[in-house]
């Protein structure tokens, strides 16, 4: 289990390779990556604020729940904070399991929890000023599945 909260960019390809390489008895690896969108007239910059201390605890708790609920060999969470440009990778999760269903379900679960239960807040800086990204009701609803 590997959990990182960091300001620095991460190398998606390298992290995916290293994660897959260290699985010997797991046949299935799922990754999810969140990317800042680069739209015409869209934001120039995103700043992610977080709650140092609580963030790490929240991610640890979410990860432990996933390990308990599914037959997982391993999981990885990396989440950035600070300044991001359009097309930057915000975060990634990776899960490894013997059978594909566990890796898929656990990755979706981690994402649903990260969206609404990990103390991150996104602010977008665009041509028309700044705006805090609003939480979506459907993200809250997504938690009810689990």
């Amino acid at each position: 289990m590997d959990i990182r909260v960091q300001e620095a960019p991460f190398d998606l390809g390298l992290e995916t390779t290293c994660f897959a390489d260290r699985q010997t008895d797991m046949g299935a690896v799922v990754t999810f990556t969140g990317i800042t969108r680069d739209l015409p007239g869209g934001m120039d910059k995103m700043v992610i604020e977080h709650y140092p201390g609580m963030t790490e605890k929240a991610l640890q708790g979410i990860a432990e729940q996933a390990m308990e609920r599914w037959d997982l060999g391993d999981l990885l969470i990396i989440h950035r904070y600070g300044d991001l440009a359009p097309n930057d990778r915000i975060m990634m999760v990776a899960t490894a399991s013997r059978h594909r269903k566990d890796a898929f379900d656990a990755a979706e679960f981690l994402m649903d929890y990260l969206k609404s239960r990990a103390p991150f807040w996104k602010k977008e800086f665009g041509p028309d000023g700044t705006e805090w990204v609003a939480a979506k009701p459907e993200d809250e609803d997504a938690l009810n599945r689990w």
Partner: protein
Amino acid sequence: MDVLYFAWVRERIGIPKERIETSAKTVADLVAELCAREERYAAAFADLSALRVAVDQELTDFDANIENAREVAFFPPMTGG
């Protein structure tokens, strides 16, 4: 106790953190105390349904007891991932 503010709550109140001496029993009591203090608090806490609270870094609700808390944090719904 330390009181922390994040995202637009921090912006509205104007500071990220402050030390508060209080005898408030619950988060709601603390909020009432802060709102009575200054307009910027009343503005930030106007709609509690738009806010979340953590006591000692655990997400909780406004009824939570804070008599032994070291740290209370207020913030909007999270937008991670």
